[in-house]
């Protein structure tokens, strides 16, 4: 292989061959590409490659350090599992889009400079929208357009930031920056859009549930975590991020509780989990940044897994709505088991990965004496027990039987779930093995008696209230409806304001035009009366009469001037 080739480029180039293949060969090729990328990543080790100068700027196409390596590794795993999950799809467009999207996300992670980052950043936006459009419904088309506008805006803002940053510092190296200048604000907004910061977040819940069954699995893994990586690289220890993160943890959980669509519930929960990582980036320091990398990894594993199980339900039953599903565990026992495993990982049950990784972020907050912050995150941890841990398996798979029977999910889907669940649990069983990959070496004390007891207590009492709420009818009723969110501002209020404004403008224009026409009509009328056919000013007169009039006028002039 070419020395120092960015592993992401292997997937992107491979995507170009995919349309030439079909059937079994295509399956092999699709699965082989992430494996090749992973092999390249491992063979390269740490370092920088592909450095060259263009227009006075120093580019570094491949830069692998411990932080980018963690994200690169999990991106390869997610790409492999996502492709395995979508093997039944016969749609070339989706295969190509998946590979280019995953490849560009990996490419962006290993970008050593901002120009390379920007290039891959934009490719992720443009390639991923095809996974939404692939649903080929009007709703998904419109949602995809909104998604594309927002994603490309992020890219444009990033480019603006790069120009300012290069002018300020003369460097385009992608490294830790001092937050404060205008350029860094641009970066924060660009990264913040993709990280789903509060008020910039709606594209996640809008588009992920509109994507295809396999598309939402793929989408959930890359864009938001790429943004986490970019923020962890550039702004560790920036206080502002702590408060953004707190809002992110708390804000989406009410929507996740009320939501009827399983995939949208996941999208809200994903948003809340992003908050944990943003907080940790804001805290900064070795432990917190280790926590970011570790929790991003686990987060990709369980989020993908939950999108896989809800996707499998959608694939077999044609719906992912709680109100339309019932007794699915009888038809799909294996998928239901994976739903429970995913739920156990996401609620950070002992022996699962999140038990080990969430603790890193929580203790980083306590080490920094941020108790309020810690309480906010603990609230988020309880909320996710409800939102995903209980709601998705119980309401999605173990709800009251509605008499309908379906087939179990296809084997390749189950295998893909097994890959994600396997890694998620392996990290919990052997945290030290995984922690060795984190940016800073550290000692871990995952399994202390107090940590196990307190976490189990947290889970058990949350389950108790959940069960009591269900029995007493206090739990919010699931209804076939949507829940308004901030996007109401631009999808409804903005639209209404625009329609209103345009009707006012149109009205004003009509009035003005009417008045103008009236004026012209009046003038024509008057002119016709005086100059019209047979009127005073257009009458033909005899020359004698005309000469007399002229003489009289001359006479008056003479008298007036010389008198």
């Amino acid at each position, binding site marked *: 292989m070419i020395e120092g080739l960015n592993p992401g480029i292997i997937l992107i180039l491979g995507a170009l061959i995919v349309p030439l293949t079909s059937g079994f060969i295509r399956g092999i090729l699709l699965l082989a590409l992430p494996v090749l990328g992973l092999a390249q990543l491992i063979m390269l080790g740490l370092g920088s490659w592909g450095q060259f100068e263009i227009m006075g700027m120093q580019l570094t196409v491949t830069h692998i350090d411990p932080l980018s390596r963690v994200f690169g590794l999990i991106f390869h795993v997610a790409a492999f599992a996502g492709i395995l999950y979508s093997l039944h799809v016969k749609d070339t467009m989706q295969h190509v889009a998946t590979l280019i999207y995953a490849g560009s996300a990996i490419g962006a992670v290993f970008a050593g400079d901002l120009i390379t980052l920007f290039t891959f950043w934009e490719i992720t936006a443009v390639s991923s929208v095809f996974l939404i459009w692939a649903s080929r419904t009007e709703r998904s088309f419109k949602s995809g357009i909104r998604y594309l506008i927002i994603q490309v805006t992020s890219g444009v803002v990033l480019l603006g930031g790069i120009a300012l940053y290069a002018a300020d510092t003369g460097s385009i190296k992608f490294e830790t920056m001092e937050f404060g200048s205008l350029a860094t604000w641009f970066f924060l907004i660009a990264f913040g859009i993709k990280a789903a910061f509060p008020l910039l977040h709606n594209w996640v819940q809008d588009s992920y549930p509109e994507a295809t069954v396999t598309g939402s699995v793929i989408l959930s893994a890359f864009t938001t975590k790429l943004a986490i990586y970019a923020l962890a690289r550039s702004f560790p220890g920036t206080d502002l991020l702590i408060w953004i993160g707190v809002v992110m943890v708390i804000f989406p959980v009410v929507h996740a509780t009320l939501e009827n669509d399983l995939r949208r519930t996941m999208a809200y929960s994903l948003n809340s989990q992003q908050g944990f990582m943003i907080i940790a980036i804001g805290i900064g320091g070795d432990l917190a940044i280790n926590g970011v990398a570790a929790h991003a990894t686990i987060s990709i594993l369980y989020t993908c897994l939950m999108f896989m199980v809800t996707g499998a339900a959608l694939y077999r039953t044609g719906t992912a709505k709680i109100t339309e599903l019932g007794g699915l565990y009888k038809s799909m026992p294996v998928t239901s088991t994976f739903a429970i495993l995913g739920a156990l990982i996401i609620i950070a049950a002992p022996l699962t990965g999140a038990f080990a990784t969430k603790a890193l972020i929580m203790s980083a907050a306590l080490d920094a004496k941020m108790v309020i912050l810690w309480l906010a995150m603990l609230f988020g941890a309880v*909320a996710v027990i409800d939102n995903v841990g209980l709601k998705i398996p119980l309401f999605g798979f173990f709800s009251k039987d509605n008499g309908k029977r379906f087939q179990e999910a296809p084997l390749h889907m189950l295998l893909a779930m097994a890959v994600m669940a396997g890694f998620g649990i392996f990290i919990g069983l052997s945290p030290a093995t995984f922690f060795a990959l984190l940016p800073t070496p550290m000692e871990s004390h995952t399994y202390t008696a107090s940590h196990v007891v307190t976490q189990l207590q*947290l889970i*058990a009492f949350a389950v108790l209230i959940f069960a009591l709420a269900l029995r007493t009818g206090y739990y919010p009723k699931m209804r076939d409806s949507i829940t308004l969110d901030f996007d109401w501002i631009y999808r409804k209020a903005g639209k209404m304001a625009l329609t209103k404004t345009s009707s006012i403008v149109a009205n004003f224009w009509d009035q003005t035009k009417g008045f103008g026409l009236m004026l012209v009509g009046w003038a024509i009328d008057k002119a016709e009366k005086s100059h019209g056919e047979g009127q005073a000013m257009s009458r033909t007169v005899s020359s004698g009469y005309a000469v007399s009039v002229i003489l009289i006028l001359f006479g008056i002039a003479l008298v007036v001037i010389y008198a």
Partner: protein
Amino acid sequence: MPNSDNRTYWLDRPGNVNKLFYGVVALTVVLAIPDIFALFNIFYDKHPKTEIEEIPFFYGLYAMISMLVLLGVSNSVSNFLKRDEDYYD
């Protein structure tokens, strides 16, 4: 596929959902025991990092309060935020 299996599942049998519920209650009781031991400083050390954690049954209490807040807020904003499925179409 139509409803072809006439198997009775464990969850379908009357009373079993109640058993699950009492199981959860029993579990919470068991998990509260270490905190009781900690009160007397026997068998179990809490290693608190903050003063808040020294409150007995802190994690259980906090989980219950959080859940009630979450459900309470969700219930109260539900009618205000819910719209028909085709609201935006």
